[in-house]
C-alpha cells in the first residue's frame, strides 16, 4: 500500500529542482562570487587585479569595520535581552488568567513587525526629532525643557537610541513564536505546579523556560542573524552617524561597495560579515547548550 502513495524519486527531484535552483542562484552563487571578488582590487568595471589577501589585511586594520562589528554585537545583546526577554515576559502576562482581551494584545503586539523597517526608521526619527519630536515635546510639557537634546546627534548614546526602535519592532514577532511554543506545553504540568504552590515567576523560570528551551534557542539564533545584518532603519535614522557612531557592518559594506565604488573590498566585508555571523551564532548556541545542559532533561 505504502508504495502507491510514495512519490517516485524522479517526481521528488523535479519538485525540488526549482526551489533548490533558486536557492543556489540567489544565495549560494552570490556568496561564492563575493568570496572570489574579495581577493581582487576591483573598483567597479571590467578590470580587476588579483591582490590575494590584501583586502583581508586591510580589513584587520580597518577601524570603522571593527567599530561597526562592536555595534552589531551591542545590537545582538540588547535585542536578545530586549526583544526576546520582553516578549517572554509579555507572553507570560498574556497567558495568565488575569489577562483580558488576549487577542488584541497578540494582534497589536505583532503589528509593528509587519511595518517596513524604513517606515519604522522614519516614525522614530520623528519621535527623536529635536523640534517636533514626541520626546522633546513631552519634556517641554512636564516643564523640563532643559533635558531636551538632539537625540540622534549624541554620539555616546546614539546606539541605544537606534536600538530602541529595533526592540520595539520585533517584540511581537518573538511573542508569536514563544506563544506557540507555550501552547504545546501540557497544561497538566502547569496546573500541578500551581497546586504545589509555584508562583508566576517560578512557573516561568523553572517550568516554562526549560520546556521551550529549543524554541528559545531558535529565537536567539534568529535574533543574532537579524541583528548581524541590521541596516535599513539605522540607515534611515542616522546613516551610521554622527561620524561613524552608529555604523553597522552591513552599512559599512554598502558604503564601501556602492558609495565608494570599491567592490573588491566591499565583497571582503560581506564575506567577513558572513563568517563573523556564523561564529557568533555558533558560539552562542554552544554557550547556551553548555549552560542549559542539565535543564529540562
Amino acid at each position, binding site marked *: 500500500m505504502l508504495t502507491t502513495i510514495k512519490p517516485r524519486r524522479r517526481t521528488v527531484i523535479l519538485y525540488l529542482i526549482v526551489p533548490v535552483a533558486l536557492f543556489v542562484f540567489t544565495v549560494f552563487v552570490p556568496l561564492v562570487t563575493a568570496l572570489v571578488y574579495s581577493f581582487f582590487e576591483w573598483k567597479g568595471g571590467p578590470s580587476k587585479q588579483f591582490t590575494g589577501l590584501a583586502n583581508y589585511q586591510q580589513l584587520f586594520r580597518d577601524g570603522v569595520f571593527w567599530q561597526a562589528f562592536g555595534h552589531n554585537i551591542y545590537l545582538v545583546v540588547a535585542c536578545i535581552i530586549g526583544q526576546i526577554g520582553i516578549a517572554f515576559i509579555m507572553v507570560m502576562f498574556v497567558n495568565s488568567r488575569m489577562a483580558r482581551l488576549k487577542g488584541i494584545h497578540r494582534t497589536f503586539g505583532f503589528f509593528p513587525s509587519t511595518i517596513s523597517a524604513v517606515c519604522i526608521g522614519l516614525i522614530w526619527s520623528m519621535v527623536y526629532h529635536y523640534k517636533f519630536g514626541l520626546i522633546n515635546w513631552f519634556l517641554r510639557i512636564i516643564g523640563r525643557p532643559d533635558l531636551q537634546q538632539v537625540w540622534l546627534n549624541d554620539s555616546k548614546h546614539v546606539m541605544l537610541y537606534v536600538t530602541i526602535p529595533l526592540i520595539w519592532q520585533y517584540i511581537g514577532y518573538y511573542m508569536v513564536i514563544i506563544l506557540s511554543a507555550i501552547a504545546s506545553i501540557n497544561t497538566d504540568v502547569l496546573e500541578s505546579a500551581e497546586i504545589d504552590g509555584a508562583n508566576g515567576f517560578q512557573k516561568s523560570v523553572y517550568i516554562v523556560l526549560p520546556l521551550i528551551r529549543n524554541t528559545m534557542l531558535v529565537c536567539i539564533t534568529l535574533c543574532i542573524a537579524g541583528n548581524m545584518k541590521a541596516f535599513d532603519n539605522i540607515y534611515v535614522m542616522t546613516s551610521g552617524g554622527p561620524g561613524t557612531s552608529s555604523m553597522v557592518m552591513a552599512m559599512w559594506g554598502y558604503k564601501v561597495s556602492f558609495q565608494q*565604488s*570599491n567592490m573588491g573590498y566591499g565583497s571582503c566585508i560581506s564575506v567577513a560579515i558572513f563568517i563573523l555571523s556564523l561564529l557568533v551564532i555558533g558560539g552562542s548556541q554552544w554557550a547556551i547548550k553548555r549552560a542549559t545542559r542539565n535543564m529540562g532533561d
Partner: protein
Amino acid sequence: MKKRVLSVALSAAMVAAMGVPAYAESTEAATEGAGSGVVEVAKNDLAYKGSLDIMHFSTSEESQANGGSDGFRTTLAAWEDAHPDISVEENVLANAEYKTQVATLAAAGDLPDVFLLQGMNTKQWAAQGQVMDLTDIIKASPYYKDYKQDYFTPFKDGDKIYGFPVLTGGTCTVVIYDKAMWKEAGYDKFPETWDDVEKASDYFNDKGVTTIAFGNGGQWQANSDFLSTLGDRYTGKEWFQSLIDGSGSKFTDDKFVAALTEMKHLFTETKIFNEDFNSVTNEDAREYYISGDAAAFIGGNWDESYIATTLLDSDKDKYNNIGFAVLPQPADATEDPNSQNIGLGYAVAINPKVADDKDKLAACIDLAQELTGPAFASYVASKYALGGLTQVADVDLSAFDQVTQDFYNYSYVDTTPCEIYDSYINSAVWGVCNQELQSMLNGEMEPQQVAEDVQKAYEENYLSSSQTETEAS
C-alpha cells in the same frame, strides 16, 4: 448601515486624494515663466531603427519643482517624437537610487547605451573603458561654439572629454534669506562677514528664531553646500586644481586646515545655526526657513527651487521677501569673497559598446547633442531663467518675477564661480571627508586630524590609482 457609512467615507477619501495632485498640477503652472513650453529639437536624419536604452534621474516628481529635470524630460520626449523609428527605453530613478544603480551596472560592465556620468567618476570609469571618449564628437558638434567650455572640466581626463554636461548649471551654495526678517534685525541686506552674522544671531536668538538653518544629516551637505565654497575663500582655485591634477596640493596645507578650523568655529562655538543641524537633512532644514523658524537657510539650487515653489503657493509675501547672498566671508580669509560653487554635476555619456553599431552610435550622439543643445537651453532659459551647457543669447528676464531674476543673476551674473569639490576626485575620498566633517562639527574631532585622514584617503584612493592608470596607459 455601517458598511454604507464606511463606503461613503472611503469614496470621499478617494475623491480628496484624487483632488490633491490635480491642485498640485494647477499651481505648478503658476511658477513657470513666460516660455512657450515647446521644445524644437533638430530633426536630423538617422539611419538607426530599433531601441535605445537611456538611464537618468529626471523623474516626473523631480521635474515638478526642478526646471532642469523638466527641460530634460521635455527635450527627450521631443526627440522621441522627431525620431519615431527609434524606441527609447527609459530607466528613470530618483537621484540617490540612480547613483547606486549606475555604480552597480558599471561594476557589472552592463551600463545602458546612454547614461548620466557623475563628474567624480570620470577618471575611474574612463580608465576602465566604461565611457566613450567623446572629444572629437563634441568638437564636431554643430553647437560647439556655443558651449560653455568651463562646464566640461569635471568630465575631462587630460585632454579627453567623456560627456556632454547636462541639466542646468546650478549653485550648490546659496544663502536664502528673508529680507523682511533681516530688515527688522537692522540689516538692509545679508551681512557680508561671519562676524556680522554672529552679531545678528544675538538678535534672532533673543526672538527664538534660528539665524541660519542648515541640515547635514546626510553627511554630504557640509561638504557640497558649505566647505566647497568656504574652502575656496581660503585656498583659491589653483589649490584645488592642483589637488585634481595631483600636482602638489595637500588637504593638510595650512590654508585648507584654516578653512576647516573656521567651519568648526562657526558650527560649534557660535549660535548661528539650528542645534540639530547635524541630524536633520537639508529637506528638514529648509522647512525651518519656510515656516519662519529660521531667518535664512544655506543649501543648493534644488533647495531654492523647492522653497520658491512652496512659498509661491502658500505665502506670497514671504516669497517676495526672498533674498539671495553668497556665503559670508571669514575674517582671516584672503581669497575672492564673492565666490560660490556652481557647475554641472552630470554629463550625458555613451557606452563604448554602442560603437559596434555605427547607426546606433549616430543616434546616441544626436540624442546627447539635443539633450544639451540649444533646444534644451532655450526651453529652460525662457521658462525657468536657468542656463545649461549651451549659451543662449539675450535671455529676456523681464517676463519673470523679481525672485527668479535675482536667482538668475546670483547664479550666472553677479558672483564668481568656483568648483564643486565632490564633482572631482572620487567618492572614497569624499566618503572619509564627509564622515569626519560630521564628527568635527559635533566637536569630536580636530580640523588637523580631519585634514590628515582625508589626505591619507586621497593618497591611497586617488593618487595611487591615478599613477596606476598613467602607468597602464
